[in-house]
C-alpha cells in the first residue's frame, strides 16, 4: 500500500476504533487492514492506548462539598443558603498549599479595577445584542428585586430612578470572572445603562473612565461593588451614579 493511501486511512482507522463508521465504511477499513500491516498495527496501538487511558486515568468525582454547594445554587434553593456556600468552599480550600494559592490569585485580582473594566464593558456590549439585555423586563423594583432571590447568593439594592429621569427597564444575570453579577438595566432617553452589582471583596476607590467609546463609573458602597456602563455621556452617567448612591 502506498503511504499516501495509509495517511488517508489513518483517520478512518481511528474513526473505526471510535465506533464512528457506518457499516460500509467499516467494511472498507477492515479490507484495508487485511492487506496493510502498518495500518493493522496502528489499529492495535490505538486500541491499546484507548484501553490504557480508560484503565489508568483517575476518575474524577465531584467532592461532596461541591455537590452540596451546587445543590444550594440551584434555582429552587434558598438564597440565604447559597450565601454561606459559594465562595468560602473555594477560598478556604485555596488557603492550603501553594498550588491552591494560585486559585486565589486567579479570582481576587479580577475584582480589581484594572482587569474588570474590559469585562464589564464587554458584558455591556454583549448585552446590547438582540435578546440579551433583559431576563426580566419590569419597571417595578418590587418585581425586580424578588426576581434575584434564589438566583443569586446576594441581594442587590434596586432603586427606581424614574423620577430622576433614569427609568428602570429590567434586570438580568451576568457572569464575570470570579463572580456572578446582578445587572440592573436603566434607560436615559435612547441610551441603555447597565448597572452591574456584586458583593465587594474590599474597599475600592471610585473610578470613572471610558473604554471603546463606552463610559463607566465604578464605586463600592454598603458591601457591594457597582459598575455603571453606558454610551451615555460621562456627565449624565456620573449623575446617574450619584442617584444610585
Amino acid at each position: 500500500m502506498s503511504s499516501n493511501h495509509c495517511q488517508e486511512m489513518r483517520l478512518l482507522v481511528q474513526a473505526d476504533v471510535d465506533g464512528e463508521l457506518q457499516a460500509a465504511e467499516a467494511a472498507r477499513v477492515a479490507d484495508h487492514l487485511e492487506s496493510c500491516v502498518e495500518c493493522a498495527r496502528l489499529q492495535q496501538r490505538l486500541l491499546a492506548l484507548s484501553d490504557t487511558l480508560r484503565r489508568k486515568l483517575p476518575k474524577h468525582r465531584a467532592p461532596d462539598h461541591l455537590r452540596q454547594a451546587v445543590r444550594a445554587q440551584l434555582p429552587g434553593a434558598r438564597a440565604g443558603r447559597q450565601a454561606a456556600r459559594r465562595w468560602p468552599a473555594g477560598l478556604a480550600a485555596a488557603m492550603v498549599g501553594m498550588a491552591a494559592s494560585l486559585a486565589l490569585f486567579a479570582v481576587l485580582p479580577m475584582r480589581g479595577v484594572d482587569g474588570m473594566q474590559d469585562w464589564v464593558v464587554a458584558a455591556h456590549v454583549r448585552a446590547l445584542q438582540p435578546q440579551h439585555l433583559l431576563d426580566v423586563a419590569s419597571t417595578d423594583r418590587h418585581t425586580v428585586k424578588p426576581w434575584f432571590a434564589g438566583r443569586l447568593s446576594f441581594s442587590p439594592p434596586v432603586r427606581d430612578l424614574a423620577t430622576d429621569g433614569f427609568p428602570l427597564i429590567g434586570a438580568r444575570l451576568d457572569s464575570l470572572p470570579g463572580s456572578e453579577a446582578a445587572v440592573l438595566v436603566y434607560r436615559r432617553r435612547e441610551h441603555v445603562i447597565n448597572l452591574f452589582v456584586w458583593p465587594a471583596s474590599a474597599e475600592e476607590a471610585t473610578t470613572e473612565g471610558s473604554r471603546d467609546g463606552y463610559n463607566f463609573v465604578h464605586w463600592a458602597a454598603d458591601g457591594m461593588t457597582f459598575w455603571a456602563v453606558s454610551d451615555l455621556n460621562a456627565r449624565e452617567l456620573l449623575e446617574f451614579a450619584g442617584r444610585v448612591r
Partner: protein
Amino acid sequence: MRPEFEEVVLAHLDAAYGLACWLVRDPNLAEDVVQEAVLRGINYFASFRGEDGRAWLMRIVRNTAYTMLAARQQAGRIEAGDAGAVLEVPDPDDGPELALSRQDDAARIERALAALPIELRECLVLKEIEELSYKEIAHITGVPIGTVMSRLWRARRALMTAEGAADDEQ
C-alpha cells in the same frame, strides 16, 4: 420531555467536574469552574431543548473553564509580572515525551495527557473518558467534526509517541 435543570446538573456533576479538572488542572479552580458553570447554566437553560443534557452542560463547563483560565492568566500577569510565567496556562510542563520518561504507569500517562495542548487534551478526554461521539465533541468544543478528528489524531499520536510505541510517524 425536557428534564429539569436540577436533574441535568446533578446527574452529570461528576462528568462536569472531571472535565473541569482536566482542563484547568487545579482541583480548587475546577470547583469554581463548576459552580460558575451552574450559574451560567441557569441563564442558558431557557435555550435548552431537551437534547443530550450531558453535552449541553459540558459545553458550558468547557467555555467557563476557558474564561476562567484566561482570567487567571491575565491575573497572573498583572500580579506577578515576569514571575507570572509559572502560572502559564494551559500548562507549564515539558512536552509529552519528557513527561512520560519520568514516571511510571498511571502517573506517566496522566502527565503525558496533561502535557498536551488544551485543545487536543479536551478532545481526547471527551472521547476516551466521557465516551462522547465526534458530533457531540464538535458541539461542545465549537469546531467542525473534521477538526475533532484531526485533533484526536494529533493527541493520540503524541501519546503513542510518548509511550515509545510509535515508529512510523514523521
